[in-house]
Every structure is written in C-alpha cells, then in structure tokens.
C-alpha cells in the first residue's frame, strides 16, 4: 500500500503558472485526474513521477520526496503521454529492456507476463515503429507494469485506443485498484473517469478545483450556489420575486445590478424569465459571475 502526497505544490515556467498551490493525497485504488487540456494535469503527473521539481511545496511517496531519487522507480510505474519509444526495437525487446533496467531476477518471465497482461504477446515480435497508437499505448503500459509496481501513474492512457482496447484497459486498471495498488490516471473525458475511478481530483487552470468520489463531485458541480448578475428595468421587484420563488438563497442590490446567489441553478435559469414577465420587468442582461467555475461546470455537464 503506497500513498502519494502533494503538499502546497506549485510549478511555474517563467511567467506561466502551470500548477497553483495544489495539495492532495493519492491512496490505494483508482484515482482519476480530470480536467480540460492545459489544466496542468501533465505537469502534476510529471512532478509525481519525479521528472519535474515543484517550484514550491513537496511531492512525497510514503513520506520520501520523489525528486532526484532514482530508487522511487522500484515502486512506481509510469505511462507517459508522449509517443517516443525506441521505434527500431521490437515490442518484446523493448519490454524486456525495461525489465532488465529494473534488474528483475527473471526479466524474460516478467516481460512475457506484462505483454500477456496487455494482450500484446501476438504482435510482440514486430518493431514498435509499425504499431498503431493503441498498440503503442499498450506496450507503454506493459513497460510500466513489468516490475509489478504498487504505484502506477498514467498520463492520458486512453488516447488513441479503440473502444475494445479502452474497455480492456479500464478493466485492467480497475483490477489493479482492487488489488490495493495506487493507480492515478489523467483524462479530459468525464465518462472515462466516471467509469473506473473511485476518487476524482479535478484540475482547472492549474488549480485543484474539486476532490472526492464521483457522486460527490457531481453534486458539488450541480448543487453549489451559482452567482449571477442581472440588469433589469426594476431590480428591486425582480429581487423580491426571485427570493419569493425559493430558487436563490440571497440577493444583493447594487447600483444598477442585481446579484443573485442561486441555490437551485437549473430552476433559477428556468423561472427567471417567467418571473420577469409576470412582474412586467424587462431583463437587460443576465450573466454568470464566476466565469472559471462556470466553465468547469459547463464542461462537466456537456461532456
């Protein structure tokens, strides 16, 4: 049983902040790292894998820092997102080389087992350069599993896989999670994460936006109060009508704008025009106030 812990981790590249003050603990089971492209998922995984130093904060595996420590790789398997992987050698030679680099007692058996696990034994004699994207992805997976690590980090592992390969990998990750391994994978597709992850960590624009199990996240996303600013011909009357309806917990009147904290977001959006029409009020402008969280929300519901 292994635990990865990130404590107040930030990472910036020049002026660009890729990861902003993230703290999370990844324990046994399958954890999905969800977020749109460019949210900092790869940067985070690179730091967890010891390939990038955090600018501030710490990344530890079972209490030991991972940066600049080659020995952590005894316990960690990594499936990188990039495709570069010794195209001139065969799948078999590649996985075997990985086994030998780990100095396993029986590298041949380990390589065979890993290739069987990802169902690549039949084509293992072919050069990697001739593989499809999905096949490469599975050979990468075999290279990460060859030493049977307690921790597995996968960066966008489902990219380029066909539906059958996807299902197979999902089942593989699920069974690894069930056997007590710490599995973390990143994805920008909600269904993938929903399907197999016990825990979900959501990253948005470098920040850790939410954490918990899937239902919890879904609830947070849909039930959290949404702030709107409204401009109308009679803000005061509209505020009274909104409060009376019960879809908002509070309203605020400012010079020429009405702020609404909608607790039931879906209902608010639905009833606002009706309320306005009923009171003979003209709506000039309705806009969500918190753009960044709103975009997460929109993202999660549309995918």
């Amino acid at each position, binding site marked *: 049983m292994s635990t990865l812990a990130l404590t107040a981790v930030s990472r910036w*590249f020049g002026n660009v902040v*890729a990861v902003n003050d993230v703290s999370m603990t990844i324990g046994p089971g399958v954890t999905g790292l969800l977020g749109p492209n*460019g949210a900092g998922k*790869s*940067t985070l995984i*690179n730091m967890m*894998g010891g*390939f*990038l*130093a955090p600018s501030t904060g710490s990344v530890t595996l079972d209490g030991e820092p991972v940066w*600049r420590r*080659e*020995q952590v*790789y*005894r316990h*960690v*398997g*990594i499936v*990188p*997102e*990039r*495709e*570069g*992987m*010794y195209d*001139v*050698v065969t799948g078999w030679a*590649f996985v075997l*080389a*990985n086994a*030998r*680099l*780990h*100095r396993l007692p029986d590298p041949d058996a380990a390589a065979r087992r890993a290739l069987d696990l990802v169902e690549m034994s039949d084509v293992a004699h072919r050069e990697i350069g001739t593989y499809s994207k999905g096949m490469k992805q599975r050979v990468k997976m075999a*290279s*990460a599993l060859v030493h049977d690590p307690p921790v597995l980090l996968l*960066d966008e592992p489902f990219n380029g896989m066909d539906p059958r390969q996807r299902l197979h990998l999902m089942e593989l990750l699920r069974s690894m999670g069930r056997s007590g391994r710490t599995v973390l994978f990143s994805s920008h597709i909600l269904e993938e994460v929903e399907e197999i992850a016990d825990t979900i960590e959501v990253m948005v624009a470098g920040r850790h936006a939410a954490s918990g199990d899937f239902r919890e996240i879904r609830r947070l996303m849909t039930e959290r109060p949404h702030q709107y600013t409204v401009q109308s011909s009679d803000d005061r009357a509209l505020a009274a009508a909104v409060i009376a309806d019960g879809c908002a917990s509070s309203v605020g009147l400012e010079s020429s704008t009405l702020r609404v904290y909608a607790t039931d977001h879906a209902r608010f959006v639905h009833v606002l025009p009706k309320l306005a029409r009923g009171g003979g009020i003209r709506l000039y402008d309705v806009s969500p106030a918190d753009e960044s969280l709103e975009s997460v929300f929109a993202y999660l519901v549309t995918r």
Partner: protein
Amino acid sequence: MNPTVAQLTLRTLLGKRRAWLLLVLPAVLLALALVIRLAVGAGSREEVAIGLLGAFALGTLVPLLGVIAGTGAIGPEIDDGSIVYLLAKPVSRHSIVITKLLVAVGVVTVFAALPVALAGLLMTGTDDRLALGYGLGALVAGTAYCALFLLLAVLTRNAVVVGLIYALVWESLIGGFVPGAQALSIQQWSLALTRMVVGDRADALDVTAAVRPGIAIPLLLVLVVAATAFAGSRLRSLRLTGDE
C-alpha cells in the same frame, strides 16, 4: 556501464539513416588515401598524407563523427521523450551517461579512428609511425568530442548546431586566423599526442600542434571527466515536460 542502456543506445545510433551518414566520410577518406597511394610518388607521399590526415581526417572527419556520435547517443531520446524509459528506472544517471559515452566512443573508434589509421597505413605504411600517430590522435580527439557533445545534448536541444559551430567555426576557422584560439582546441590537443608518437621527425615533417603534450594530456583528461560528470548530474534533473 549498463548493457541494456548500451544496447538501446547502439540501436538508436546505428538505426536508419544515421549509419549511412557515419559511413560516408570514412569511405571518402579511404578512397582518397587509395588514390594518393596509387597516384603520388613515394618521395612526396608523406607530405600529401600529412595534409590529408591533418586537414581532412582530424580537422573534419573526426569532429563531424564526434558530433553525430556524441549528440546522437542521447539527443534523439531527449527530443522524442523516450529517455523517460531510462530515467523511470532505479539506474544511476551517471552510469547512463558513462554507458552512452562508451557506446559513442566505440562508434568513433570504428568509424573514425580505425579508418584514419588505415588511411595512414595505405599511404605511408609504417613510416615515421604516422598511421599510428594520427590513428591515436583521432581516437583521443573522438573521445573528447563525444564527451563534450554528449554534454551539449543534455544541456540544449540545439546540440548539433552548437557542436558544428564549435568544431568547424572555432577550431578550424577562428583557430586558423587567431593562433591563440588553438590553445582551446580538442584538435590541437590531440595533434600534440600525434606529434609525440611521431617523435623526432615531427618538426621535419611539419606535424604541428599548438600545445605541448604535457599540457594537452591533462586538458583532455579534465575535459572528458568533467563533461561526463556534469552531464550525469544534469541528467538527474533533466526536465521532462511533455508536449504541453
């Protein structure tokens, strides 16, 4: 030394077009040596041979192969990200660098030092130990170039360009105009060894070097050891950021 790293490095180095590139220059050198042997009279053959071995072999072939082998031993893996499969292992970074250097040195031995010695033998036989002297010079220079360019490949994605600028612009061009620049030149340090092997007749044959062996040998040793140690420590903190 890690045999698995060596194997993977050799496969990348000799894979596809690069092997062909490695063969062209030594083939040209040997062809020229053969022509000289057949066409030039015995009396002036040594002089012509020294011109070819100095200007073309040590001046161009060895540094170019040093760039190809030195940067090629690690550069492509860093560029395409496949180095991650070596780095995600409990293997010392220094042993990765040392292994890659040994493979690169093996490649320049086969494709540069041996052809240079062979060309010397073809043209001058064993006279004045010219073949041995230039062969050894090529081996030493090749080793130093490999260590330097391997470090460059760890430090920058533009290692090939920087390496070519060093080898061709600094050593050949600037060294030709500004004699002082030759004191900091792998080519000149190696020529000092060639002079040492050739011995008393070196001056008469006009085998020149800008520095004495007593200075050149320590400089070469320091360069190889320091570059390799630095490359190893830089590899420990190599930033792998992916395509983002």
